[in-house]
């Protein structure tokens, strides 16, 4: 088994690359590294099915779609330089948030829950248990999620495929040039 410290270092290093890289393609690759580390973290947290889903959906789906979006957009690969003041302000907000929540975590007594879930207490970690819950107690949410995904697919296609007739042709030429 991989030690958890290594998993955390991989994830955080990938996340830093994803946020700091100026070239968006490098940032997406950093995100893929971070997501791989997070999938390993899911494994360590006893959820191998979710680790597989993380790799399939995030690394195999979302990052690939991002790379396609970068490649298909004429100007999307580069980024205007971010002003130093903006970076300092963003870093300040993040650090303040980190200190506040870290203080909260360390000062809270995180005892095991005393109440039970609607399905009762169990220690069944198997994929079968997840499937049973999905089609039994959480069936409405499961079906709603499939409707959400369908709407998202139709919406994404209709937004991306729309050609504006009143679009300024000068801008079009500039983009192609």
């Amino acid at each position, binding site marked *: 088994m991989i030690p958890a410290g290594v998993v955390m270092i991989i994830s955080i290093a990938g996340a830093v690359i*994803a946020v700091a890289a100026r070239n968006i393609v490098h940032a997406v690759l950093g995100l893929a590294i971070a997501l791989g580390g997070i999938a390993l973290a899911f494994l360590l947290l006893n959820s191998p099915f979710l680790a597989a889903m993380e790799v399939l959906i995030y690394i195999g789906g979302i990052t690939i779609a991002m790379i396609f979006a970068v490649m298909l*957009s004429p100007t999307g690969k580069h980024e205007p330089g*971010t002003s130093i003041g903006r*970076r300092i302000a963003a870093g300040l907000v993040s*650090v303040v948030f980190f200190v506040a929540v870290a203080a909260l*975590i360390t000062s809270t007594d*995180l005892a095991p829950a005393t*109440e039970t879930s609607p*399905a009762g207490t169990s220690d069944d970690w198997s994929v079968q248990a997840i499937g049973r819950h999905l089609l039994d107690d959480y069936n409405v949410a499961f079906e709603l999620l499939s409707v959400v995904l369908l709407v998202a697919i139709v919406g994404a296609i209709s937004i991306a495929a729309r050609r504006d007739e009143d679009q300024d042709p000068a801008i079009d030429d500039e983009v192609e040039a």
Partner: protein
Amino acid sequence: MTLEIWLIFALVLFCIGLYGVLARRNLIAILIGIELMLNAVNINVLAFNHYVAPDPAIGQIIVLFVIGLAAAEAAIVLSIVLTVYRQRTAIDVEDLTELRG
């Protein structure tokens, strides 16, 4: 490995993502920050699921729903990014003011 260490780890990832959302000016870079924050939340849920939850299947189902919604959100955002970048030469999010009220 204790619960606190996993929570701090998820918090570090969340803060890195928060910094990315606030500091970057490219739409896809902002989306990357949002994905990092969503994954930090997933780790948080699974850590609680591993250490304190009464039924381990519930936390995994919550994370499955989050992953599904994140995939839908990413599809919508990427199609908006493609539309925006096709229509204009400026790529700074500060210039995208068409929807200003």
